């Protein structure tokens, strides 16, 4: 059973069309959804959670269509944590205990301690990092099998980001757990993701295993003439400057005489998006 299966999802808004989006996330894996601001990452996530109705396509989470009961097994942290400002962590814990069927109060308390979150201070007094940590504590305290995180590291300092990424990595050590994490901070995703999906202007550019992407593509710096001499299919995105040309190339289609260096996911995305 796949954790997430999306087939030909489309959603049309005035001036923006999302899709068609198709992606699959196997259990035990982490999928990074990368895209610039306004690419459609949050819209895709909201469609998964039935917060908006897609125009076409099918979405299956944990093997079935989304339902209220199924959300017991899905932990969600959106970019705005969305908790009542006048309540404290203890009260929020009680609310969640009465909401989620598999709520574990002891696990929640442990996370509050681990994240050094006070349980008697109002949520509005928390910093952005603390709010995100509380959101994550909630998501991890009801035996969720799937975590969906929308820009969880945005606005966080490097220490907190590192801490969060470690926790997410630990989460997928259990075989039937999976994470979908969307971000435009690609360096974070590159550290932990097994699969990478690029969304650019509402279109899915690719959805592949990270290691395969890094093996398949490389970064080439050469002259414009040399670049133009390559097969068109070999060049996935390029930038021409007065000093030369830089391009993301398919290693298999580039002669061995060219010096192709390893590429980062960030470079891959930037050049592919520019090439569109």
């Amino acid at each position: 059973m796949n954790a997430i299966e999306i087939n030909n999802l489309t959603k049309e808004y005035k001036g923006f069309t999302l899709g068609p989006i198709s992606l699959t996330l196997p259990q035990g894996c982490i999928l990074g959804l990368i895209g610039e601001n306004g690419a459609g990452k949050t819209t895709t996530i909201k469609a998964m959670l039935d917060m908006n109705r897609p125009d076409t396509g099918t979405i299956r989470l944990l093997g079935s269509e989304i339902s209220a009961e199924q959300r017991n097994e899905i932990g969600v942290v959106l970019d705005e944590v969305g908790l009542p400002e006048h309540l404290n962590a203890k009260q929020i814990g009680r609310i969640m205990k009465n909401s989620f069927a598999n709520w574990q109060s002891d696990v929640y308390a442990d996370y509050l301690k681990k994240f050094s979150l006070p349980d008697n201070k109002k949520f509005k007094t928390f910093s952005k990092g603390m709010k995100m940590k509380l959101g994550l504590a909630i998501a991890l305290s009801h035996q969720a099998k799937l975590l969906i995180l929308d820009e969880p590291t945005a606005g966080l300092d490097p220490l907190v980001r590192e801490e969060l990424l470690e926790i997410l990595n630990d989460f997928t050590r259990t075989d039937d757990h999976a994470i979908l994490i969307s971000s435009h901070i690609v360096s974070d995703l590159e550290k932990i993701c097994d699969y990478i999906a690029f969304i650019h202007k509402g279109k899915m550019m690719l959805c592949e295993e990270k290691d395969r992407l890094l093996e398949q593509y490389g970064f080439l710096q050469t002259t414009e003439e040399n670049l133009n001499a390559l097969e068109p299919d070999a060049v996935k995105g390029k930038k021409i400057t007065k000093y030369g040309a830089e391009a993301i190339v398919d290693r298999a289609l580039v002669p061995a005489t060219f010096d192709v260096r390893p590429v980062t996911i960030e470079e891959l995305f930037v050049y592919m998006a520019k090439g569109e």
Partner: protein
Amino acid sequence: MKGLLCKDFYQLCNPVGYLVPALLLLAGVILKMPYLLSFIAVYLGALPIGMLQNDEISRWDIRLMTMPFSRRTIVAEKYLFSLLLALIAALLIGCGVLFCGSAVFPDRASAAAWLTGALMPCIMMPVLCYPLSFRFGARKANMLFMVLMILFAGVFSASISFPDAVFVPLYYPIIALIKFFPGVRADASAVAALNKVLELEKSRIILYTLAGYAILTILSWLLANRGFRKRSF
């Protein structure tokens, strides 16, 4: 639903939440002014609507969509919460009426009938606001509601000042409803019809009012469910 009710009651439990109804109760009893007691119903009727707005500001309404509640449950909880607030209002106002005693109300029946009418804001404000809030969002709904209330107040005032004016027919459905009451002549004017209704036995007025509340609440609930089903976040 327990979690949702828990959250709403936690939000209610703050000093202002207790203070306002308590002060109104005290003032109404000491000064023997029942209309001050009726403001308890206004306050508790407006409270859930204000809380819906706060939910939007804090993005709790979006978080709700990630929790194991169906849209139906979310709507039902709000109506249940409003009903519980109406019961609290009835209890507080009822205590106030008891303390006011015969100085203000000649008999128990009049007091009970007055109490039923005084609860109107507590029932009607959510009933009118919820369908709009669930369909368009609380902030848009509040603006729409204010515009409608201003229009209604304007038309109502103008129709009193100019009874023969062209918009009097807007009141025909209400007048027709009043004329269904037994003993009210079909050709009676609106004022005469209303006076006739008020002459009925108090128990009948209470019964008809509560039935009216129930019917309007059910209609509102059906509309709210329908609107919320269509809403995107």
